[in-house]
């Protein structure tokens, strides 16, 4: 489940967006630097805390789920890390640097429902939006960008839809287009907000395959996830959140009855494979002390 050393980037198969068409910003980061460091992060809406004093370490080359009940602040956690929500306090480092310095290493897949899918544009155009950050003002996507967009669409099995109007897509297809738009950014740390929402099982599978490939390549995948059942299968690590950080670490260490009860307020929508016999591992006690670091 938890994979060891991240594999070398050099064995990236040709044709993958990681073929680095243009994103030469920053050489390969030191693999010992955490992909994400969050210290004392607090976010509030109108005095009401949405996230309270969250500390987090996520190592490179891992796939991590952010789980918790509704209103736990999962989406807010991602959005505040990405600077979309103002932080009341706290510090965030991505690949050891402030977001401003590593924007080109960061990809974002927002919730599917966050945009108007009746917008007059094509699938290819939406994917090309992932190249705008590299292009800079005034420059238009050219042949290179279109080629990269085509490859990204192939990765998510949507190449045949490149010229389709986006309002004609099903929910799963929309989600895959958003994933392709993130792939084309050629980033190293990928944030996804509910990538499986309203998606059928087959699409979920194929999205997860893409995310696992990214991880196996040494990229970092961090996703808000809703189904506790699939966490052990899909992810290496898990962040259990309910305004405060309940626990974070490898899935078996975090998914204890006690942690889940703390997060979900007694009603556990999931029985951990280790329950009820095995005691919670040390360091995984709820909301006490610093959470176990995800990296070694």
């Amino acid at each position: 489940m938890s994979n060891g050393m991240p594999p070398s980037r050099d064995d990236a198969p040709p044709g993958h967006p990681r073929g680095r068409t243009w994103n030469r910003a920053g050489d390969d980061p030191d693999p010992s630097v955490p992909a994400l460091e969050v210290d004392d992060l607090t976010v509030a809406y109108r005095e009401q805390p949405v996230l309270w004093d969250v500390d987090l370490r996520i190592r490179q080359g891992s796939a991590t789920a952010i789980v918790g009940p509704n209103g736990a602040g999962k989406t807010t956690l991602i959005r505040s890390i990405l600077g979309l929500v103002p932080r009341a306090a706290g510090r965030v480092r991505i690949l050891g640097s402030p977001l401003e310095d590593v924007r080109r290493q960061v990809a974002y897949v927002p919730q599917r429902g966050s945009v108007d899918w009746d917008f007059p544009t094509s699938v290819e155009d939406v994917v090309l939006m992932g190249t705008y950050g590299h292009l800079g003002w005034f420059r238009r996507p050219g042949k290179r960008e279109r080629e990269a967009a085509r490859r990204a669409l192939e990765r998510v099995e949507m190449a045949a839809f490149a010229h389709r109007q986006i309002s004609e897509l099903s929910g799963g297809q929309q989600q895959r287009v958003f994933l392709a738009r993130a792939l084309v950014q050629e980033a190293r740390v990928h944030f996804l907000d509910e990538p499986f929402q309203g998606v059928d099982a087959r699409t979920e599978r194929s999205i997860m395959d893409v995310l696992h490939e990214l991880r196996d390549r040494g990229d970092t995948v961090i996703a808000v996830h809703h189904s506790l059942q699939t966490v052990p299968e899909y992810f290496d690590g898990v962040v259990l959140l309910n305004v405060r950080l309940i626990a974070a670490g490898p899935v078996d260490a975090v998914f204890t009855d006690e942690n889940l009860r703390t997060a979900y307020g007694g009603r556990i929508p999931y029985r951990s494979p280790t329950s009820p016999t095995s005691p919670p591992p040390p360091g995984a006690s709820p909301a006490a002390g610093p959470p176990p670091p995800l990296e070694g």
Partner: protein
Amino acid sequence: MDGGFLPALFTDHTLRVVGLGAGAVGALAGSLGCFALLRRQSLLGDAVSHAALPGIALAFLLTGSRATPVLVLGAALTGWLGTLFVMAVVRHSRIPEDSALGILLSVFFGVGLVLLTFLQRGPTAAQAGLDTFLFGQAATLLVQDVILVLSLGGVALLLLALSWKEVKLLAFDREFGRVQGIPMGRVDLLLTSLLVVAIVLGLQTVGVVLMSALVVAPAAAARQWTDSLGRMVILAGALGAGAGVGGAWMSTLGDGIPTGPAIVLLASGVVAVSILAAPRRGVLWDRIRRRRVRARLAAGGGTPGMPSEAPGERERLGGGD
């Protein structure tokens, strides 16, 4: 050549100037209006144009001049102030945007009307004609006015073309742009400024009361006919230009017919036809498609998936995956 509309439009100097000016105003408002429509900011155009009225009156009050550039500058200033005011209200209070726009619209318009009434009582006749800004009078366009519209409008459209992908991203997914480090706030400022320019340039022709219709109507009509943003903007510009020219001509038919209502009537006609008859998005088309699907289901050949239908149609019928 005598009689007939087209010959007069091409031979009569005044009509040519007026037609050119009104057409340019329509093209500018129509093309930029697409973004107001897609960003669901149609009311913003209304607020800006109403907020421009006190600017026109104040500009005249302070300078005593009725020259178009002076009045347009005044209009742009208060139109802009109004927009900033709405943005500030939305950011710092719990008043939602539509309420803020509604408040701004009526307050600024009221102030403008009071100022106009005050000016009408003035001792000289110099203020005569300011009230044409209420409903527009294309016949008052001079050659230099048209040159102003063409040059400023040309710059506005050039800026739009240069910032095309940023503006598109702003309209579709602003936050995705922010994460990529694109200064979306500045893009928003640019696009809003261009819309303000388009609106104040059109006030003399269309008037503050109905200007927003020329912003929204061509865009709404164009959206019915195409699924490409580029084609939509070009088509809306063309429809706006057509409504401008046609409305200007209509207003010259009878003495004192205000241009604004004439233009807006034409534009609304185009919208009505588009909503009804456009392929795929039109109401008639929808009816026909629904009947066909129902017939197929009744014939027993239909499965819930309806494989012969495009996925989009499945979605609209409440199926989907």
